[in-house]
């Protein structure tokens, strides 16, 4: 990791209003809008006494990660390859891998910041209680960020151009949002559907975050699902990635 490259990439991400909006502003905004609906602030027996706005806090936390990992990062990485920026860096004493790891780290930090904003909006505006098991929550968050970055790396590895990376990213984006519970939070899904979604990276992440919110340690099976996806996707990305 080269700190000058990292600083530069952080500065460059800060100059992308589109990425900033969708990663940092959109998830808390989505939560704020949903919470503004009075019916969504009523306790529901079907959700174990939770309100809909409660169930959407982990969802919006994951939305920021999915945008960062699947939409923003692959386009950046593929562009760096397509434009010869990685090649240019290959002729210097700093290896182009420094650029890749910097891209990943700034997107990871942006995703975590987005999660923090969503939690803050939930707590301050709608009085959503903070995670009862903070360490378990943090572990689930870190694993979710890792799997988002690994998924984004695979997209970048298989996409030859920025256009393809954008198209593949969008194709992956919506199923991932569904699994995270954007249309139907996992607590509200029928059991069978929730079980199936639990094998996908963000379905497992949603269930792990929910458990930690309720004060329990996240289920090991959900943590394991995320870890296995992370290893498998990272291996695939490393195998398929082309430097030029």
């Amino acid at each position, binding site marked *: 990791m*080269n700190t*000058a*490259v990292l600083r*530069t990439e952080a*500065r*460059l991400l800060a*100059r*992308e209003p589109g990425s900033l909006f969708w990663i940092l502003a959109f998830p808390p905004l989505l939560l704020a809008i949903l919470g503004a609906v009075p019916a969504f602030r009523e306790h529901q027996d079907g959700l174990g006494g939770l309100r809909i706005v409660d169930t959407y806090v982990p969802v919006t936390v994951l939305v920021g990660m999915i945008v960062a990992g699947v939409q923003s990062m692959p386009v950046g990485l593929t562009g*760096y390859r397509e*434009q*010869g*920026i990685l*090649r*240019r860096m*290959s*002729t*210097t*004493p*700093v290896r182009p891998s420094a650029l890749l790891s910097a891209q990943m780290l700034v997107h990871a930090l942006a995703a975590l910041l987005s999660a923090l904003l969503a939690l803050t909006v939930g707590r301050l505006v709608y009085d959503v209680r903070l995670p009862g098991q903070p360490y378990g929550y943090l572990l689930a968050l870190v694993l979710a960020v890792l799997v988002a970055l690994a998924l984004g790396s695979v997209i970048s590895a298989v996409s030859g151009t920025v256009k393809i990376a954008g198209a593949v990213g969008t194709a992956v984006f919506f199923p991932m949002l569904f699994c995270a519970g954007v249309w139907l939070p996992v607590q509200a899904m029928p059991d069978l559907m929730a079980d199936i979604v639990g094998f996908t990276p963000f379905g497992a992440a949603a269930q792990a975050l929910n458990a930690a919110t309720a004060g329990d340690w996240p289920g090991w099976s959900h943590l394991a699902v995320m870890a296995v996806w992370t290893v498998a996707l990272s291996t695939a990305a490393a195998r398929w990635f082309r430097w030029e």
Partner: protein
Amino acid sequence: MSVIEVTDLRKSYGGRAVVDGVSFCVEEGEIFGILGPNGAGKTTTVECVEGLRVPDAGRVRVTGLDPVADHDRVSHVLGAQLQEGRLQEKLTVREALQLYASFYPDPADWRPLAERLGLAERLGTRFGKLSGGQKQRLFIALALVGNPRIVVLDELTTGLDPRARRDTWQLIEDIRANGVTVLLVTHFMEEAQRLCDRIAVIDKGRVAALDTPAGLIRRSARATVITFTPSEPLDESEIGALPALASVEHKDGRITLAGSDETVNAVITLLARRRITAHQLRVSDATLDDAFLDLTDTTVTDPSMTESTP
């Protein structure tokens, strides 16, 4: 001392030999040109020198080091400007210079470098907003910012206007005056003739000739060009019989002959014998352009090869 040694370099893509046995040595402190038509293998050759490509066969040494196996050490002594390179669109000139300077243990001060390259007014401008010439100058600055012993410049004046091109040539001469060895890839004859101490002409993946610019011209069958307007028509067969004649052209009553010094003497003798006056007689050395066309396969038609003819 040779700072770059390339011996019998070979590289194929998909079964097609792009570089097919290229050898040359670059001496410390010289400006060495690699000249050739598009697709001749120039860029692939220098990419092997830069360590960006692994040769199929042959040996490349940069200050005695293998650019692939010893990539890290080579990257400290060799600065590169790549063909068609780009930077992050929203990175400013100042940030790019600072960033690349930070990669090297003993970088050049980037401020005077930017000044000399005419980028001082553009330090706050983002890469995406620079003109083509400004981008090229920034790439030259990035190639030099690490204080390299060797700098490789690939097609650096392509896309520059004539003024900017001349400024860049002056800069390359300044770089060499500071003791830096320059490996220059170009298809501009005027550039090669003006700057290079020695030139390797590469055609179809091989070195077609390697000499000084003057040496290459002397080798050409068309080393001397004679033009004049005769006061009376000349007999075609007598012109055709001139010694060492390479070509004849007639245009608006003006005759252009290409050949050697021997041809010049014979023309003057012929005119005197026939009592013909040669109006506006001009005898000139052929340009590198003529020599180049002579040395490479002229069936390759590339307009850029002739556009720099003065």
